[in-house]
């Protein structure tokens, strides 16, 4: 087990965003978290990357308890995170955005080493042609790519991706899929949240389904999509009228 969460819980006021969640991620695995809007998926990534603290539970990365560590320490230990709402540094070029991840990520690099790493990731993610553009001039599709590339530049052991395919055209999503696969081939495990079911089907080794902060199903794509509780969560039941 590379990454494990036990009894993970987070409340916002009276609302339980994540309730007693248990899951693990194996080395080199691609795990998807799916579920209706508001199921608590992004909260899980925020807890893992240290954006805010967990109320209860424990998170362990490769034997190290990261539950109380600040975000930057978790990054140094190998958690790379791409946000759903893209957060590029607007006045930096695409190259400099990646440089930040390369310099300060899981390996502390010198400027020369970080430049080499940045060049590698620019090539891998197809961003080389836009390297000199200020990030604020990019379209959303390219911003999403920068968001993911910057996380990859940190040389993570676990890559956390939050809906990096949302809003992309099919051929753009296909290119992102290829990037994620090639990152996995370098031994990186991937935990991703996605609404585009085709992406989940094509990419995930295993799928976790969440609803109202709880895990309601886990297994292969075929297993979970046929699971009665999953169908109920997505389509509603007769009694509740499908809301």
């Amino acid at each position, binding site marked *: 087990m590379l990454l494990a969460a036990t009894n993970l819980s987070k409340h916002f006021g009276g609302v339980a965003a994540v309730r007693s969640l248990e899951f693990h991620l194996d080395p080199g695995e691609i795990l998807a978290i799916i579920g209706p809007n508001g199921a608590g998926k992004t909260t899980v990534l925020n807890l893992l990357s240290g954006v805010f603290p967990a109320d209860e539970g424990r998170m362990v990365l490769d034997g190290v308890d990261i539950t109380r560590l600040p*975000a930057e320490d978790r*990054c*140094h230990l190998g958690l790379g995170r791409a*946000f759903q709402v893209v957060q590029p*540094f607007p006045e930096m070029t695409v190259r400099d955005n990646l440089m*930040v*991840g390369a*310099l*300060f*990520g899981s390996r502390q690099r010198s400027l020369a080493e970080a430049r080499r790493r940045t060049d590698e990731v620019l090539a891998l993610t197809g961003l080389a042609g836009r390297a000199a553009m200020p990030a604020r001039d990019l379209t959303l599709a390219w911003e999403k790519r920068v968001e993911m590339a910057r996380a990859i530049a940190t040389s993570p052991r676990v890559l956390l991706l939050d809906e990096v395919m949302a809003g992309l055209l099919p051929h753009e999503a296909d290119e992102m899929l290829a990037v994620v696969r090639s990152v996995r081939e370098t031994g990186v495990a991937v935990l991703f949240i996605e609404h585009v079911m085709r992406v989940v089907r094509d990419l995930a080794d295993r799928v976790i389904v969440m609803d109202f902060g709880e895990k309601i199903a886990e297994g292969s794509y075929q297993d979970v999509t046929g699971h009665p509780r999953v169908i109920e969560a997505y389509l509603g039941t007769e009694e509740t009228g499908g809301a």
Partner: protein
Amino acid sequence: MRWAGPAALVVALLVPLVPAGGYQQYVVQVATFVLINAAVALAWDIQARTGQLSLAPAAFFGLGAYAYTMAALRGVPLPVAFLLGPLVAGAVSLGLGVVTLRLHGLYFAIATLAFAEVVKVIFKELPLDLTGGAVGLTAPPLLGGHQTGLYYLGLGVLLLVVAVSLAVRHSRLHYAFTAIRQGELTARVLGVRVVATKLLAFVLSAALTGLAGAYATSRLFFVIPEDTFGIGLSVTALATAIFGGVYTTAGPVLGAIILRSLEEGLRLVLREGYLAVYGVILMLVILYLPGGLVSLWNRRSRDAAGGD
């Protein structure tokens, strides 16, 4: 702009040697004030690159000035007293930074402003034989008060601040500072040690401001709480940097040269009315050149390169 820095340095070195007749002394004096303003503005800018708006330059300038003066008056050798300026300012900023740098935006700005005012009051109210109270102290001059020698010492102080600014710009710190300024949470998730980095910028900037304070005092020969810790000093620092171009090395220096010369020139022509014209020029530049004067140059060189 490769040639601009060396050219400016040559001009700066020649200033005291240009024969200006009866105006000689006046020219060197104005040039010395340009050096001080440029050093304080550039030191402020280094810290501003982390996105924190500090209104405390006056405090660190004053601490440097008082550290030098009080030590020198107690028989500490002048070069040692001079170095106490940046040391005291840096040490105090470390304490202030630890408690305030977790604040953001307006809250940080207000905390630094309050700190500057508190320090001023403390120096005013301490026993007379210690700080001289509201009247202040007479400071022993460095280099026997030799005007040309002091001008070159001031140039040395500014060159040190420029060297630090350039070193920051061409190191890993540049990426950390800019990332923190443009998205603090994202910077943390990418592994940037945000608090430690902001603290480093804050202390570096304060020490350099304290050095400028010690230097200015050795040139002005006195310290007075209302002037030496005056809020005007902080406002001038940030106005100068913004006028010239923030987050650059050339901007604050260029801003100091133009603003200070403009101020002196207008004062000669318009007497008390100069502040109104000065204010309007400042406003026009801030309104129509948000990147400051250096953005004019960047725009031109970009056009020459085919634009983007």
